[in-house]
């Protein structure tokens, strides 16, 4: 069988040397002229304007688009890649400074919570959940304006409703939505183009990236953002259940915790797999140890699966990422501890 061979109808002559340029080429194979020179100049100008305005995500988005139009291995590709990495780290630093990780020393909160130790930290984090929901409400509402998200979410809601009743179905779909919007938020911070969240009835939901993260650190941040937001959704459901005594909310809290915990399995394209990409070998073993400890405390069977996967990844992954990533490790450990705790929420049969 021979493949059809067509004449190069779509070939464009290089304005400089006359070579025939196929549609997939980024540079002329003879003289090296960049095929998308005009667009590249415009993107570079856009990126520099955005950077001058202090809009890191917009600058990142423009530079990432430029990268797609540059041949890999060229000096221009390397230079733009370096700009992306530098901007991404700036964005990461800004994000860190915006997160109230712990009560400031000497504050009224700290004075009250200091004697309570770990319990105090959890209460502080719950306060953070409330602040988080209020500040991110706009993004959460805007996400629902995308037709594919809304329609697929309604389809999922219908499927879950037929099996578990509307209250639990609504809470489950809402918690999945918050999880996905965590990814959307992180992706937009890093200027990575992605689709709107799509629900798959019976399976969950996903956001498809249209550009690759520049390095494992970025991938880990984007990957772990989903479970982090999902944790806040589960915690919010738990708070409502605690305050009102409604069983369906407790079921939602526990299910959301299990769903997010499942996503922390450090394999393949799952969120945990991406979180592990930036960890060093030692950090991967530390995460595996934390999973074993969490299982020992909670006796949650899912944690065995996570532990086995984490230990396998640590054993087979050699030294892991050379630089390691303390930020990703801290996020992973916090998620394991908090989600593990939420899986112990006592639940009556929903409906």
């Amino acid at each position: 069988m021979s493949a059809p061979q067509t004449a190069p109808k779509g070939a464009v002559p290089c304005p400089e040397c006359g070579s025939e340029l196929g549609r997939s080429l980024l540079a002329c194979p003879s003289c090296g002229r960049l095929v998308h020179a005009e667009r590249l100049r415009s993107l570079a100008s856009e990126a520099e304007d955005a950077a001058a305005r202090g809009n890191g995500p917009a600058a990142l988005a423009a530079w990432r688009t430029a990268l797609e139009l540059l041949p890999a291995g060229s000096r221009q590709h390397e230079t733009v890649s370096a700009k992306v990495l530098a901007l991404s780290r700036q964005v990461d630093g800004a994000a860190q400074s915006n997160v109230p990780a712990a009560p400031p020393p000497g504050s009224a909160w700290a004075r009250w919570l200091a004697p309570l130790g770990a319990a105090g930290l959890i209460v502080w984090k719950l306060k953070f959940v409330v602040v988080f929901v209020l500040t991110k409400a706009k993004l959460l509402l805007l996400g629902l304006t995308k037709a594919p998200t809304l329609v697929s979410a309604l389809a999922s809601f219908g499927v879950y409703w037929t099996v578990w009743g509307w209250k639990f179905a609504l809470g489950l779909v809402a918690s999945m939505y918050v999880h996905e919007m965590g990814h959307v938020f992180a992706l937009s911070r890093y200027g990575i183009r992605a689709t709107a969240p799509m629900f798959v009835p019976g399976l969950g939901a996903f956001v498809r990236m249209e550009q690759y993260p520049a390095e494992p650190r970025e991938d880990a941040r984007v990957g772990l953002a989903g479970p982090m937001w999902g944790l806040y959704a589960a915690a919010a459901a738990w708070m409502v259940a605690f305050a009102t005594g409604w069983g369906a909310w407790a079921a939602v809290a526990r299910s959301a915790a299990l769903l997010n915990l499942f996503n922390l399995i450090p394999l393949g394209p799952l969120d945990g797999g991406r979180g592990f990409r930036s960890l060093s070998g030692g950090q991967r073993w530390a995460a595996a140890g934390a999973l074993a400890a969490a299982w020992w405390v909670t006796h949650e069977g899912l944690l065995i699966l996570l532990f086995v996967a984490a230990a396998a990844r640590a054993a087979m992954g050699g030294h892991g990422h050379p630089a390691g990533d303390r930020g990703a490790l801290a996020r992973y450990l916090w998620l394991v501890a908090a989600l593990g705790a939420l899986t112990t929420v006592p639940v009556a049969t929903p409906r």
Partner: protein
Amino acid sequence: MSEGTSPGALQFDKAEFGTERRGPAECGQCRNPLVSAYYQINGQPVCERCKLQAQFDQSSGSGAGRFVAAAVFGGIAALAGSAIWYAVRATTGYEVGIIAIAVGLMVGGAVRAGSKRRGGPLYQVLAVVLTYVGICAQYVPDIVKAIRDQAPPGVAASASPAADAGATPVSAPGSPAGEASAGAPAVSAGGLLVALGLLLALALAAPFLGGFQNIIGVLIIGFALWQAWKTNRRVPLEIEGPFRVGSPPPAPAS
């Protein structure tokens, strides 16, 4: 953006490469520089040698051999996927639906590898059938257990699922008939086959036995089958070219 030509300035006129790269465009397969002419295979630029290799790969080999290889690879992947799913269920107590998708991807990928990446309806059907069998096979231990739990005490003592399924016990040569019926009953080969067939049929029907309550399980299996189907789509080899590299030949003098 300043487009100066000073050393180190970022310019977007011409691609610049270090000494390790031999040209501004390279073959997408062998990474050699594209000189004098090149082709595009499904949008990827390739040199003439790689284009000839792709055409040869497309037309070489035996169809039956590829099908057998695809069936063997896919069968092994289905068994492995089934074992993983059962192990996860037995360990954690959860039926993790996404593993069905992984089974679909594993089987689909294995069939594609066995078929030398041919794809097409034959391999798509093979991948779907093997994926479904792989997914349902994880129910076999549960069905055997359920049959044994419900069988009368004398029959339940038998280790063979064939005996559980009602095969007529026959005496082993040289042994008293009473021993065979009181202890471990012997089973004919035909009876064993019938019982295994029934067991397989029950496992294959298992996803639908839950009725409407298992709608989520059926949807998940549907997605897994779709993954296996999609992975084995035939991608036609579309070759464009040759594209000329360098300046056009001078016009003949009049």
